[in-house]
């Protein structure tokens, strides 16, 4: 019920907002988001972290039994943490939209609540189709948020976002359903329970797994986004309203990584092992290329958007390292990227609200004008750069560590102590130190482009857009007051940023609880991979079970 209420409450609030008056929409929405947050915190307390690898708060309601579809929910620690991330960003997004949204307010907040429900649904789903439903349903609210409240080129951005991700995920659906069919074929019963499908998927021969991998990645890698499927992202981010960008960067991209973690790795372990290297190369290209592209942007928001491409390259790199450090790092990276990049988008949105431009050619040296804003910006930039002591570092380091460790070459040739004798810290895998080293240059490039941004926007001589009221007058900022906003951040805005900043520091200084919590699920994933490594490449096909007998036996308890 815990999880069901986490989905129902935002939906109910969406309904309230839809039927309520326009004026109170923002407030109701804030209450709704806070209620969701409260519930999720409650869930976090009720969760037995000692058994983080098990799916808790399980519930299952038959939905469309003809299809074998159930509404089944459950979270392990990874999923719960992502739910928490979603819940935390919710109120922040509402606060960020407080003054920015002036038209069709009801529609905005109602969709925001719906989006929140859908995102939580993705993480809480234990049924493949229910997962997919939530996964896809995030598209509509996001499409509307961008198309209705975005900037000039919003329609193109929204359409591209929708179609690109929709196309990918339809192919992914084919892959997922193939697994479900395989289960039906071998077990004689149609079900979409993820656990059952996981077991079934692993009996698939490697070349079929490769096809599954391809199909799933086509869908999920678009969402992540992995190079070269990333081009919708900068556009969508630039055009989206602030809260849209925050959710997009903070949670929606995590849907992709989470889906890869949840489905690609367990469904096609052998294929992932086989193709880890080319995938890691794609990640690495994303890291470096994304970073370099960031560097030459003039639009701040686009810069941060491209930085997501680079950052999630790290996240995926850790995932494809397929070892403990890598996968742990990847999971942490999901959380951390959500916080730090989300906050960066918030900050840029606050700036945009004041200056109505995001071009670094027009603005600069805001440190003098908006010290509080600047402080936050530098802080989150540092979190984003991966400064140890802030949250970004932990994930990044572990991802790199995973990639570095994961090489079958340890113990052979140059890297060998004695031939054939692997090192203690190395793991099986096909990535290895060179990949880590090349990907590691991403650390440098991240510093280059983010500091470039800070140098332009925060530091240097003060530049404000022409025609901006305070250009001539040092103490003015009349334009801001006209818009109801002071020169520097308001308490509401600080209230939106401060919790994220606090979380960033906490996760950077004491990531231990999170690290501990994700160990059990990660252990499960890594064990799956390890088992897959042990399997022979060629094996006889699985025998078809006679349908009649197995129908009863295979039925889900």
């Amino acid at each position, binding site marked *: 019920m815990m999880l069901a209420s986490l989905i129902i409450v935002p939906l109910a609030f969406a309904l309230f907002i839809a039927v309520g008056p326009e004026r109170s929409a923002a407030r109701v929405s804030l209450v709704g988001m806070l209620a969701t947050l409260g519930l999720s915190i409650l869930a976090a307390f009720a969760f037995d972290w000692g058994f983080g690898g098990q799916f808790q708060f399980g519930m299952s309601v038959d939905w469309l039994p003809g299809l074998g579809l159930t509404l089944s929910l459950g979270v392990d620690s990874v999923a719960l943490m992502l739910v928490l991330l979603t819940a935390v960003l919710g109120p922040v997004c509402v606060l960020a939209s407080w003054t920015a949204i002036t038209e069709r307010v009801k529609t905005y907040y109602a969709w925001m609540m719906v989006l929140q429900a859908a995102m939580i649904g993705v993480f809480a789903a234990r049924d493949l189709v229910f997962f997919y439903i939530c996964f896809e349903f995030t598209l509509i609210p996001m499409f509307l948020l961008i198309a209705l409240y975005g900037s000039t080129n919003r329609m193109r951005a929204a359409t591209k976002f929708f*179609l*690109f991700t929709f196309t990918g995920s339809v192919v992914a659906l084919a892959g997922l359903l193939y697994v479900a069919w395989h289960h039906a074929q071998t077990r004689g019963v149609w079900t979409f329970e993820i656990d059952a499908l996981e077991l079934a998927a692993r009996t698939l021969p490697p070349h079929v797994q490769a096809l599954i991998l391809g199909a799933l990645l086509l869908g999920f890698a678009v969402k992540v986004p992995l190079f*070269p499927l990333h*081009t*919708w992202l900068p556009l969508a981010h630039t055009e989206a309203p602030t809260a849209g960008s925050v959710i997009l960067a903070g949670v929606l991209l995590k849907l992709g990584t989470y889906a890869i973690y949840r489905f690609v790795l367990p469904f096609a372990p052998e294929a992932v092992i086989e193709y880890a290297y080319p995938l890691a190369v794609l990640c690495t290209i994303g890291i470096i*290329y994304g970073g*370099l*592209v960031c*560097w*030459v*942007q003039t639009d701040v928001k686009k810069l941060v958007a491209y930085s997501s491409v680079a950052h999630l390259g790290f996240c995926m790199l850790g995932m494809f390292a397929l070892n*403990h*450090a890598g996968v*742990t790092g990847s999971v942490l990276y999901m959380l951390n990227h959500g916080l730090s990049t989300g906050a960066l988008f918030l900050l840029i949105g606050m700036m945009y609200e004041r200056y109505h431009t995001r071009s670094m050619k027009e603005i600069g*040296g805001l*440190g*003098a004008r908006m010290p*509080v804003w600047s402080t936050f910006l*530098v802080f989150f930039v*540092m979190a984003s750069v991966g*400064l*140890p*002591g802030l949250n970004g*570092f932990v994930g990044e*380091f572990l991802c790199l*560590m995973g990639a*570095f*460790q994961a090489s079958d070459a*340890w113990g052979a040739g140059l*890297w*060998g*102590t*004695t031939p054939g004798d692997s*090192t*203690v*810290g*190395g793991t099986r895998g096909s990535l290895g*130190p060179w990949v*880590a*080293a090349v990907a590691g*240059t991403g*650390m*440098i490039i991240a*510093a*280059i482009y983010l*500091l*470039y941004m800070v*140098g332009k926007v*925060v*530091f*240097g*001589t003060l530049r404000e857009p022409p025609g901006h009221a305070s250009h001539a007058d040092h103490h003015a900022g009349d334009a801001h007051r006209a818009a109801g906003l002071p020169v520097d951040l308001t308490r509401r805005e600080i209230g939106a940023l401060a919790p994220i900043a606090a979380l960033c520091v906490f996760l950077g*200084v*004491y*990531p*231990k609880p999170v*690290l501990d919590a994700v*160990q059990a699920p*990660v*252990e499960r994933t890594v064990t799956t991979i390890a088992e897959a490594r042990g399997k022979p490449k060629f094996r006889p096909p699985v025998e078809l079970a006679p349908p009649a007998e197995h129908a009863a036996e295979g039925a889900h308890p």
Partner: protein
Amino acid sequence: MLHQALHLLPTLAAAPPAHADSGAAATPGGQLLMLVPALCVLAALFSALSGPLKIRSKIPGYFSVACLAGAFVAVLLTYLGHESGVKIAHGFEWITFKWGDGPGQALTGNFAFYVDSLTLLWMLFVTGLGALIALYSVEYMADDVGLGYARYFFAFNIFVLSMSCLVMADNLLLLFLGWEGVGLCSYLLIGYFYKKPVAVAAAKKAFIVNRIGDLGLVLGLLATFVAFGTLGYDPLFAMIRAGVDAKGAPIADSWVTDVIPLLLMAGAFGKSAQVFFYVWLPDAMEGPTPVSALIHAATMVTAGVFLIARMYPLYAADDDHMALSLVAWCGAITALWSATIGMSIFDIKRVMGYSTISQLGYMFAGLGLLAPTGAAFHTLTHAFFKATLFLAVGAVMHGFGGQLDLRRLSGVARMRGFGIVGLAMLVGSLNLSGVPGTAGFFSKDMILAQGFSTPASMIEAPQAIAWVLLLTAGLTAYYTFRAFFRVFTGPVEYLPGDDEHLLEHGRHPKGTTLAEWHKQHGHGHGHDHAHTELTGVAARRAHGRKDFDPTTEEFDPHPPGWAINASLVICALLAIAAAALYFVKTPHAEEGGWVGGMIERSSAAFHSPHEFNLLGITSHSAMYLVSALVGLTGIAVAAFLHAPKGWQGLFLGSRDTAATSRADALTPRLGRVARWARAKWYVDELYDWFLVKPLRGIAYVSSWIDKLLVDGLVDAAGALPARVGRVLRPSQSGVLHGYAAGMAGGVALVLLLVLIVLN
């Protein structure tokens, strides 16, 4: 406070002999040191809060001084209580998790301190100088009271915090935390005058160049983990001492001792501005001078030295000392290289910057030449005397509106209120030049002597390194006293600079933009065109006065106040007193005095071989003479070229204005060499042309590729349906017969298809 500690030294030296370095397991303890980060955090938080709380006074500064002093006391107490061996103070578990019970199945990155004498040695001067320079800053930054003050002291305290973590870490991961933390603070503090584009660029450069090295460090960490299955010093050293990795395989001739030291070295070189990485440090002089003194001279830049000293067992474990040879050679080359630049440029703060690079080169050479004690001792002495020098330069800068050009200042020591500054400068200069009897003399000597005695079988061509270092010693003495003679002696002449403080408050001179102003005045790094207006009466600017009319009023030099003077005095005294450490007898080491004892008791201990026996003279005895000679020669040349007429010039000098000297006549004869040296050998330009610009070019190309190719392909794929649709559209002509023909044709085609399938 430090001198009190020094009084206690003899008693401490008599403490029980150490045998802890022989591999006894670490014991818990030293919890007092947890106070250091706690106090730093407290001070940082207080400073940070003082901004929003609108505290517009020096309280945050004083509070920081108190906290840092408290930290120093904590370190000192720990030191006093420390006998030998290693204690581990456990704070909390940071990045710690395990996925198995075997070796290499857990990552342990605790927030815990590894307390041994090496740690304490570093911590003593880090916290001590930290407190001292904080005191200096209280006055130096007085104009920025308010938000700027908060920002400054926040970063300052975070710096000490990070540096403490770096030094005291009990594992490489926490070291990396500190490592990056000091980088951040360095960035924030170099960019303190954030409205100056030069400062912003310098800050960025510092951070990015450091990051390049950091990548090496990270990879080194990872390689360490792979080989040893741990990042904690204690288990690591146990394995290294045993000469095996975690699998029990010998490491002496394996990749472990080749690759890891090189990777760590890359990190160390980045942080300590060696060889390819040095370019950020001169630019870092854009920061406030106390920052340059503490971070870019005394402490942070020695982190690289510390890292190698900390990991010395691993370096020493290599059978051919490949990494150490490289360290030594890189150090020596850097020392010479930056000394040549230091000789030719006119910005005294940058002279000090290049001198720092050069001295760091010494330290690395010392490490590489198997003289960790020498390196550590030089680090210590350098910390004091270079801090002194910087603080003195800072006082000058503070007093003359940011003027740093040694051709625009003269006779400063003789001006009212600048006496202490002059004396402090002299103390520092003597130390830096290695004049016999000074601390600098002894520490440098240890390295040089070791260079001549290290056998070539252990390090590649150690004698050559030593000769390079010796040459550098001479050049160092020259450029140090060149600056001293020109600025502090001679006729009293000055031209005030364009003070950052004015800019900080947003008062642009005469409404011009900063960029234009800089262009007019030729200020900024790399601007060394002839300053023809020097002798004339130029616009002079008052310090900190709003109603000042530059055309009518005279500029008043602004002599330092009590805080600056006090810190200067203490620093100078410490620099002098450091020499005494050399003579402290310690039961732990045969040479190197107190520092030797500290090093010998730590993991960095290395029993350096001596193979020098020319006429039965030990290398040290020989070196005393040779290096004294070289140093004095350098000073004499400086005096000849730059000293004013009269006694100050040791009767060699000829200068009678601020701007001119005998060197002016000499320089053209050197031709290109002088010009190129003054242009810093065009290294920045080279980097710009061969690294930055191409990279940016690649970035632009990537951006285009992204727009045209990647996104273009996506758009093309997206447009494909519409394209196909346009091809098919004519079939919907609206003509009934067309449709009928289409249907009939379709039927025919389908029947054909079926026939094909059948056959």
